[in-house]
């Protein structure tokens, strides 16, 4: 169950083009599972920015001198993330979490591939650890446009069976995209599950490759969210249900992690004509 806490910033450090914030958040680490996210309030009580921002939980620690703490990886994109990147030790933050449905883990030690695009690698670290604990082989692919935008290469190496890096400009690893190297890895590793977090375009392509190799895929999507807790209906995307029917589902509570083969990727940003409650074609 999610809670609301006022956290204190313990540390802000740069990592490539990202900022890693360590924050006290007593109570959240205790119920955390990989894939969960938090929302963080921006700018204080008099801020003109009234919506919280969502961030994947990167690391948690439930004990230690500060009680529960968590780390998030922030890519500076717009106003909210810029403000967060400017926080300093001892600043306070309003935090809600853990939110969303976590990654589903296989019961047995099967081979898995984890694919992260940019800061999309953030939720994969603890996932990799837990998969390793279950005896899974964990191949990791991290991709970004350029080296600076890769997050956590050295750290994730430690928990991955094999790490492959791609950058679009070739500044690190293989020149190209994660989807250029993924088929080869799928073949070599015989992976049965693919976990992915990154931009929508990447997720769509990863999901397609996973299907091709008859692997089960778990994709963490990123839709603009106003509330993060399921009450506003802004974060929807078309997902096929168990009954075969497409619904516009809330990615904050029914996601952010979805089976890649059930998301209608190409129709995100539309209401598919066969979705539940879609406007009849003749209506205005």
């Amino acid at each position, binding site marked *: 169950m999610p809670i609301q806490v006022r956290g204190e910033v313990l540390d802000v450090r740069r990592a490539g083009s990202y900022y890693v914030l360590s924050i006290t958040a007593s109570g959240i680490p205790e119920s955390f599972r990989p894939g969960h996210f938090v929302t963080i309030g921006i700018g204080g009580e008099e801020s003109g920015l009234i919506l919280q921002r969502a961030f994947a939980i990167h690391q948690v620690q439930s004990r230690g001198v500060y009680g529960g703490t968590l780390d998030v990886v922030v890519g500076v994109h717009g106003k909210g993330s810029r403000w967060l990147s400017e926080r300093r030790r001892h600043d306070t933050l309003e935090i809600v979490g853990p939110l969303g449905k976590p990654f589903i883990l296989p019961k047995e030690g099967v081979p898995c591939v984890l694919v992260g695009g940019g800061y999309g690698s953030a939720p994969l670290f603890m996932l990799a650890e837990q998969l390793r604990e279950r005896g899974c082989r964990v191949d990791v692919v991290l991709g970004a446009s350029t080296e600076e935008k890769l997050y956590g290469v050295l750290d994730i190496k430690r928990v991955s069976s094999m790490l492959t890096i791609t950058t679009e400009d070739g500044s690190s690893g293989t020149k190209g995209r994660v989807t250029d190297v993924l088929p080869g890895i799928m073949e070599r590793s015989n992976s049965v599950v693919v976990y992915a977090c990154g931009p929508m375009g990447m997720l769509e392509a990863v999901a397609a490759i996973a299907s091709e190799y008859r692997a089960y895929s778990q994709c963490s999507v990123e839709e603009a969210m106003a509330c*993060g807790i399921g*009450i506003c209906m*802004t974060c929807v995307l078309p997902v096929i249900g168990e009954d075969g029917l497409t619904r516009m589902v809330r990615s904050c509570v029914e996601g952010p992690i979805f089976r890649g083969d059930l998301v209608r990727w190409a129709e995100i940003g539309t209401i598919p004509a066969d979705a539940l409650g879609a406007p009849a074609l003749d209506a205005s």
Partner: protein
Amino acid sequence: MSRAMFGRAARSAVMSQGVDMSATLGSLAMPSPVLTASGCAASGRELDQFFDITKIGAIVTKSVMLRARSGRPTPRMCETPSGMLNSIGLQGPGIEDFIEEDLAWLTSRGARTVVSIAGESVEEYGKLAQKLRPAAGVGAIEVNISCPNVDARNQVFACDPELAANVIQTVRRQSESQTPIFAKLSPDVTDITEIARSVIRAGVDGLTVINTTLGMVIDVETMRPALAGVTGGLSGPAIRPIALRCVWQIRQAFPDIPILGVGGIRTGLDALQFILAGANAVSVGTMTFNDPSAPFRVQNELALALADRGFESVSQAISYGHRGADVFELEAEGETEPE
């Protein structure tokens, strides 16, 4: 202004900070004047994780239509200075599923419920009321008339006094006479008191003031409207002065009509402004996205603010901002307490 208007309705006083917080909206008695706002609380389940939803005034549910609706394409929201735009397009289950699942859950949970309904024609509103008639747990009906009328060239009901009155008459006719019916008004009209007058004549029990105001943002990267729906409803603290003005104007014109004030409420002092302006109760909407326990926090802050000012009950404060200047003179000499 009859400030004691609802004095008797609240039989068992619900005290907080020594202030009787009980409130009424027509015949709906509540332990607090703070409610959620339609579309900003779904059907209460999610918020119940953050605070006890039976402790606030009532849950106002997301506007429900006759049949399930998928809503509009995304992007559906966009942040604006001290506000946000939304164009959800009323996604939700149809009225039947709503009654069976959401309303039943709220009732079993012991929460008071204000059911918001939305139709595309006068007839549809009537059918919605009919469906609700036998249902248990309908504390009040809030009629969201800020919808385009498909029969009348998509004109918005809330922007036309006659259309608005037709909707209310129909809902009134199809509902139990003891069920309070509230009309939710749009600020996007030349004279909101004219619409108010029309729905009051049509037999409404109270007014919810206000729905969002129409706005737009252009994404400077794509150089197109930021919302898939082009325009959207502006909400949040940015519109608070507009909402407060509407409540004030309506209270000036109609001293006795129950008003549920909505728009940009973030703190107990914001809620107090609405009550002083004439609201009998208030809804907290958008700020719940920022702080999931906002309705509960606002309620506590309001109790404290009332106590600080010497009020013994919420009802004493209703419309107190309209009191005559003479009272003010006396007060300046320190001789009057808020009555």
